[in-house]
């Protein structure tokens, strides 16, 4: 079994489209869905351990637990939208192909994230500033996420009209959802002096936070950012 999982992880790296094509029918999807979820969970977990190591202590298991959700939630949320985008481009994709493409993309990203973990650990071991550590995390996720995203786009059937628009829309929606999920599940990289928490309260959104960070980074302190609780889960309106 373990040899099979390692073989699958290798195939996901070497020939992801081949894996998608070999398992796009429901019957063969059944054989790989659990191993692919396992690969994604373990890969992300390893990366989470490394990221949590910046703060250390309880933040290590917390980040390891949350990191798989950082990939899982956006992929599951956006698969119906991606399918609709491709349908709008006159490319009909079966649910099982969509699912296997999402799973392979997720597993590929996770394996790459685990592989790049030592590099992140090396940089974090030099005790960079908190902002630099967060930026490194974002850049790393972007770097390992691109090969995964390319799988999602390349594994769609050929033909259709304005295919690139469907692929672009899928990537944009997935990126927005991933950014928001990162914000919802924060902290991954906790400040060294901060109290360790599993999740912070839901305040504002990722774009508002990015705006505030950008203003601070450029030395603009004219607007004091007072985050309010937002969303159904955030206690808005209290």
């Amino acid at each position: 079994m373990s040899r099979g999982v390692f073989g699958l992880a290798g195939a996901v790296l070497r020939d992801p489209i081949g894996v998608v094509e070999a398992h796009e029918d429901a019957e063969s999807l059944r054989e790989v869905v659990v191993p692919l979820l396992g690969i994604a969970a373990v890969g992300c977990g390893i990366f989470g351990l490394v990221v949590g190591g910046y703060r250390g202590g309880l933040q290590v298991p917390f980040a390891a637990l949350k990191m798989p959700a950082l990939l899982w939630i956006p992929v599951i949320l956006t698969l119906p939208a991606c399918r609709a985008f491709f349908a709008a481009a006159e490319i009909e994709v079966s649910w099982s192909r969509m699912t296997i493409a999402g799973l392979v993309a997720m597993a590929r990203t996770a394996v790459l994230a685990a592989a790049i973990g030592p590099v992140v650990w090396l940089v974090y071991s030099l005790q960079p500033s908190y902002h630099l550590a967060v930026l490194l995390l974002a850049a790393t996720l972007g770097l390992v996420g691109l090969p995964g995203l390319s799988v999602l786009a390349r594994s769609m059937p050929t033909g259709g009209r304005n295919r690139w628009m469907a692929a672009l829309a899928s990537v944009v929606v997935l990126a927005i959802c991933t950014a928001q999920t990162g914000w919802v599940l924060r902290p991954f990289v906790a400040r060294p002096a901060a109290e360790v928490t599993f999740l912070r309260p839901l305040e504002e959104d990722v774009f508002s936070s990015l705006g505030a960070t950008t203003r601070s980074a450029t030395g603009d302190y004219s607007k004091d950012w007072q985050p309010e609780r937002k969303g159904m889960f955030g206690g808005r309106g209290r």
Partner: protein
Amino acid sequence: MEAAAEVWTETAAEESPTGLPAPSELARGVLGFVALGAAVALGSGDAQGAALHGPTALLVDAGSLVLTGPALLVGHQFLDLGAPVTRLADDLLRAFVRSGGMALGLAPVFLYFSATSGLSPALMALALPAIGALGLAHAAVGLVASERDAAADHAVARLAKMRLLVSGWILLTVLVGARIAARVVLG
């Protein structure tokens, strides 16, 4: 009179059923807009906001199509163009179904943003025009293709007329949609 009867017979013969979307497909399109509206309504913050945002998607997209679709069909007949009316109706309904499918696909994303942020109304303000534009583009391509298939003779003149008609219809639909949106949102 006889000539008119002949024209009528010809038109009736052309307008054989061309496979309009099934009721289930139409229902799915409606469901898409309803689901998108409901997802945004949940993130509105209060009952008033929910009542406001809930039906917006359906009203804007379906409303503008219902209000302007007949005008397109009448204009098509008035300009003596060749495509069967049922085929044009099919193009319009399929564009609606496709837009509704996209709205349905986006509904989970909007529900997520409603649950975790206050962004969903703003995102809907971006997504709704995009979905509408996609539907219009799809309809325009289908309508012109239908006319091209029907216009074996005088193809250039007929296609030019059809393109003009479709352009006018798109402009009208955008304006009507914007008016409905303004009416719904601003009251």
